[in-house]
C-alpha cells in the first residue's frame, strides 16, 4: 500500500509529458483499442524475454529505477522499509528460500525448511555451498542474528511483528528478560531449529512467518544494533549472498554492482550492473534512446508512452495489490484492542453496501483509466494466487438494475420525488465518500463513481469536500472519522495472502471495523493447522471469500499489474513468480555491446 501512496507525484510529470508533446497523444488511441478486451486478454504479457541472438562475453547492464525521489539505500532486508530499496537489495542480498509460483517454499535454495507440525518446530538447513560475498560461509549464527537483531529492544526497523512473537522466548528477549531467544537453537554450524507457539500453513510460504534472509554476523557484530541502520556496513559496503555485490554507491542516485564470485549458483554472466534513478518520463526517453536495459518499478499510469517502443519488450505480471471500497461499520476499541461493530451505522445494511458495489463498472474503469493494467477484481485475494482463485466467486459485476432492486428491497425509497433516495425512515440520506488524491486520474475517477451512485439514486458526496492526500486519508479512516462512510482504499498483500491481519476482529488495519462470529470462525479456519491440507486450505479461503462477498464487508475494485520494460539486447531474463522471486539476475546476458536504439 505504501508503494501505491507514493505514486501521487507522477501526476505532475505526466502532465508535463503532454505539454512537451512526448507521446501524450497516443493515449486516446490506446483507449479505443482496449474496448473489446475480455478475460483471455488478461495474460497478454510475457514474463520471460525471448532473444535467440548469440550472447556477448560479459558486458554492463544499464538498469534504471523510475522514481521522483532519491532512493534511501538501506541495504538490509531487516531494515529496509520501501519498495525501492527492496528492489535494490534484490540484486545483492539474496533470499534463503526458493518457492514455487504460489510462493510455497521449495527446498532447493540457499536453505531448506522442514516443519514438524506436532512438535511445532521448524528446522532450517543451510546449503553447504552458500557463501557471503566476502567469502565467508553462511552459518547458523547468521540466520539467528537476523532474529536477534529484529527482536532486540534497540532495533529501529518495522519487522518485529506477530510472526516474530510467535517464536517461543522472543518476547522475553525483546523485553530484555533473556539474552538469547530460547526457542531458537543451533543444531550445528549449518542448521538451526525454531520452536513456535502456534504453527500455521503460513510458515511454509515465503514471507509467511519464517525470516527469509540472514545477516553476516562476522561482519556486523561489532556495530551496536541501534547504529546498524545508519552504519557504513549497511549503507555503503553491504555483504550479502545474492548474485551481485554492491561495490559503489552514490547516495540516492546510483549503484554499481559487480558479480559475487562466491555466489552459490555460479558466477553471474554480466561484468557489471549500473543502476541509476530517473523520473518516469525521462526513463521513457531513455528507453527510446537506448540508454537503459531494464526499467524497474515503471509506473503503469504512463504505460501508453512506452507500450510500443520498437527496441523494448515490456514484460508484465499480476501484482500483489488490490483496491477496494471500504464501508465504515463501527469503531475501534483501543482499550480492548478490538473492533466494535455498530449495527446502527449508516452503512450497516448489507443491501446498501452490495448496491453500491454493483453500481460501479469496474471493468470500464480499468480500461478507460488504466490502459487495462488494472482489471476488475472479483475477490479479496489478488489474481496471482491461482490456488485461491475460484470461478464461483464473481465479486460485484456491474449491474445497476440489480443495485436499484436491492435498494428498493432494503427500503431506501425516493419519498419526495427528487430522484434521490431517502433512508429507511424517509429521512434524507447522504453518504460521505473519502478518496485519495493519488495519480492524475483520481479526480475524474471519484467523480465517475459518485455519478454512478447518483444514477441508482444515492446521494454520495466527498468527505471534506475534496480528495485528500495520503496521510490525511489514513488519519481519517484510522480514527474512524464520523465524516467518512465509504472510502476507496488499496492493500498490497505480500506473498502470504492470509487475511487475518486485515479483516480480523483484533486487527487494527481492519478499517471497516466489521467483525462477526462467523467471520472469526472463517479466519480461524484459514490459519488453523488443518489448513496444512491444501484442499482444506483452499476451501477455507473460498468460504471466507464467499462470506466477505455475501456480507459486502468491502467491495473489491481492481487488481493491479506491474510491468518491466526490457531492451531487446537482454537475454535470459526471467520475471516469473517462483524461484527466489527475484529477477534471476545471475542468468542475464547481453547480445550487443550497447542497448539497442
Amino acid at each position, binding site marked *: 500500500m505504501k508503494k501505491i501512496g507514493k505514486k501521487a507525484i507522477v501526476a505532475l510529470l505526466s502532465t*508535463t509529458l503532454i505539454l512537451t508533446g*512526448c507521446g501524450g497523444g497516443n493515449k486516446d488511441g490506446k483507449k479505443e483499442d482496449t474496448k473489446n478486451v475480455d478475460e483471455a486478454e488478461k495474460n497478454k504479457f510475457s514474463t520471460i524475454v525471448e532473444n535467440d541472438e548469440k550472447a556477448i562475453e560479459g558486458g554492463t547492464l544499464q538498469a534504471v529505477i523510475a522514481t521522483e525521489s532519491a532512493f*534511501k539505500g538501506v541495504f538490509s532486508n531487516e531494515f529496509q522499509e520501501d519498495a525501492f530499496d527492496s528492489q535494490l537489495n534484490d540484486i545483492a542480498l539474496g533470499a534463503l528460500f526458493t518457492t514455487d509460483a504460489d510462493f510455497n517454499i521449495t527446498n532447493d535454495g540457499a536453505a531448506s525448511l522442514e516443519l514438524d507440525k506436532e512438535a511445532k518446530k521448524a528446522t532450517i538447513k543451510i546449503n553447504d555451498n552458500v557463501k557471503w560475498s566476502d567469502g565467508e560461509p553462511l552459518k547458523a549464527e547468521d540466520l539467528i542474528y537476523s532474529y536477534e537483531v529484529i527482536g532486540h529492544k534497540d532495533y529501529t526497523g518495522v519487522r*518485529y511483528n506477530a510472526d516474530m512473537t510467535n517464536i517461543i522466548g522472543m518476547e522475553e528477549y525483546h523485553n530484555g528478560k533473556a539474552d538469547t531467544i530460547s526457542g531458537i537453537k543451533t543444531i550445528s554450524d549449518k542448521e538451526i531449529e525454531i520452536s513456535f507457539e502456534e504453527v500455521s500453513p503460513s510458515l511454509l510460504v515465503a514471507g509467511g512467518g519464517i525470516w527469509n534472509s540472514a545477516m553476516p554476523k562476522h561482519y556486523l557484530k561489532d556495530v551496536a544494533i541501534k547504529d546498524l541502520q545508519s552504519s557504513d556496513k549497511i549503507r555503503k559496503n553491504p555483504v550479502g549472498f545474492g548474485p551481485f555485490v554492491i561495490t559503489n554507491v*552514490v547516495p540516492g542516485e546510483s*549503484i554499481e554492482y559487480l558479480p559475487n564470485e562466491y555466489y552459490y549458483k555460479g558466477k553471474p554472466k554480466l561484468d557489471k550492473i549500473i543502476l*541509476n534513478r530517473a523520473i518516469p518520463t*525521462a526513463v521513457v526517453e531513455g528507453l527510446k534512446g537506448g540508454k537503459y536495459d531494464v526499467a524497474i518499478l515503471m509506473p503503469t499510469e504512463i504505460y501508453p508512452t512506452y507500450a510500443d517502443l520498437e527496441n523494448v519488450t515490456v514484460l508484465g505480471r499480476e501484482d500483489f495489490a488490490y483496491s477496494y471500497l471500504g464501508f465504515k461499520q463501527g469503531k475501534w476499541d483501543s482499550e480492548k484492542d478490538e473492533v466494535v461493530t455498530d449495527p446502527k451505522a449508516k452503512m450497516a445494511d448489507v443491501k446498501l453496501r452490495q448496491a453500491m458495489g454493483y453500481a460501479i463498472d469496474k471493468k470500464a474503469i480499468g480500461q478507460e483509466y488504466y490502459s487495462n493494467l488494472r482489471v476488475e477484481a472479483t475477490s479479496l485475494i489478488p489474481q496471482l494466487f491461482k490456488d485461491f482463485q475460484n470461478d464461483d466467486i464473481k465479486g460485484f459485476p456491474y449491474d445497476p438494475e440489480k443495485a436499484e432492486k436491492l435498494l428498493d428491497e432494503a427500503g431506501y425509497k425516493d419519498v419526495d420525488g427528487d430522484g434521490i433516495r431517502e433512508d429507511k425512515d424517509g429521512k434524507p440520506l447522504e453518504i460521505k465518500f473519502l478518496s485519495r488524491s493519488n495519480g492524475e486520474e483520481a479526480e475524474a475517477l471519484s467523480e465517475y463513481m459518485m455519478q454512478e451512485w447518483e444514477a441508482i439514486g444515492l446521494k454520495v458526496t466527498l468527505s471534506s469536500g475534496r480528495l485528500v492526500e495520503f*496521510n490525511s486519508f489514513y488519519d481519517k479512516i484510522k480514527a474512524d472519522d464520523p465524516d467518512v462512510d465509504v472510502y476507496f482504499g488499496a492493500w498490497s498483500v505480500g506473498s502470504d495472502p492470509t487475511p487475518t491481519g486485515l479483516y480480523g476482529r483484533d486487527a487494527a488495519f481492519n478499517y471497516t471495523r466489521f467483525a462477526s462470529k462467523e467471520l472469526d470462525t472463517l479466519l480461524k479456519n484459514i490459519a488453523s493447522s488443518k489448513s496444512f491440507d491444501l484442499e482444506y486450505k483452499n476451501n477455507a479461503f473460498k468460504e471466507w471469500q464467499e462470506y466477505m462477498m455475501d456480507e459486502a464487508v468491502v467491495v473489491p475494485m481492481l487488481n493491479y499489474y506491474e510491468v518491466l520494460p526490457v531492451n531487446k539486447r537482454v537475454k535470459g531474463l526471467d520475471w516469473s513468480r517462483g524461484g527466489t522471486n527475484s529477477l534471476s539476475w545471475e542468468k542475464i546476458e547481453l547480445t550487443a555491446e550497447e542497448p539497442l536504439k
Partner: protein
Amino acid sequence: MWKTVLRRVLFMIPQLFILSILIFALAKLMPGDPFTGLITPDTDPKTIEALREAAGLNDSILVQYGRWITNAFKGDFGVSYTHKIAVSSIIGQRAGNTVFLSLFTIIMTYVIALPVGLLAGRYQNSIFDKIVVIYNYISYAVPTFVLGLVILFLFGYQLQWFPTSGSVDVGVTSGTFAYFMNKLYHLILPGLTGAILGTATTIQYLRNEVIDAKQQDFVKTARSKGVPVSKVYSRHIFRNSMLPITSNIGMELVALISGSIFIETIFAYPGIGQLFIQSIGSRDYSVITALVMLFGVITLIGTLVSDILMSVVDPRIRLD
C-alpha cells in the same frame, strides 16, 4: 558599519527563535506522521506504535519542542525518520550538490546576462536588442519544468551529449580531478536550465538601467567633457547600472541554496529543494525543521550581505 552588522546579527536570534516555534508547530499540525506511510499488512500496528513512542512523538508538543530546541542548540538535529541517518549528514550530502549547482548557475547567469544586458541597453532598438527582448519574453514565460524537460530530452536523450541524471557517475573515485570534472559534466544541463531562466530578469534590469542612465545628467556631462563613448559606458554607466543587480544578488543566492525543486526533480539531481519536498511528503519532521531553520539563517544572512554590498557599490547608502 560593524556596529550595525553586529546589531543585525544579534537581532537574528529572536527572529530565529520565533521561526523555530512556528515551524515546529506547523510541522506537527500536518496530518499523519513519519510512521503513517509504513502500514502494510505485514507490519504490526503495535510495532509502529512502539516506534512512535520511542521517537517521542506521543509526548506533548511542548515537551517535544523543548527536547528538539535543546538538542538543536548543541548542533544535534536528530536522525532522519525516512533516511535513517543523521540529519546533518543527509543535509550535508545534498547541500554540497546544491551549492555546487547554485554557484555554477549564478556564474553562468552573469557570464551570459552582463554583456548581453549592457550591449542591449547601449544599442537600444538595434536588431541585437530586439532579439534580446524577444529572448527575454520567451525565457521569462517558459515554465521551469518545460524548459528543463526540453533541454533534458534534446541534449540528454536525443543527442546524448550530457548525462541525464544524478550528480556524478558511480565508480569515480571521490577527490580526484576526474571526479570534479565528472561532477561538472553532470552540472551542465541543470545549470544551463537554471541560468537561462535566471538571465531574463538580470538582462531586463541591466538593459533598463543602462537606457535610463544614458539620459542622466552625469552621462551628458561626461560626454560633453569629451570622454570617449566606450569609457562613459565602462566607467560611468556600468557601475550605476549594477545597483539593482547587487541588491538582488544576496537574495538570489538564498533562492539558489534553497534549491530548485523542479530542476532537481527533472534531472534527478539530489539537492536540498527536493529533499525538502520529499521530507514534507513523508513527514520527516527532523529534516523539515532543520531545513527551515537553515533557510531562515541563510535568508537573514543573505539580506545582510545584500545591504553590505549595496553600501560598497553605492557610497550614498550608509549602513548606519
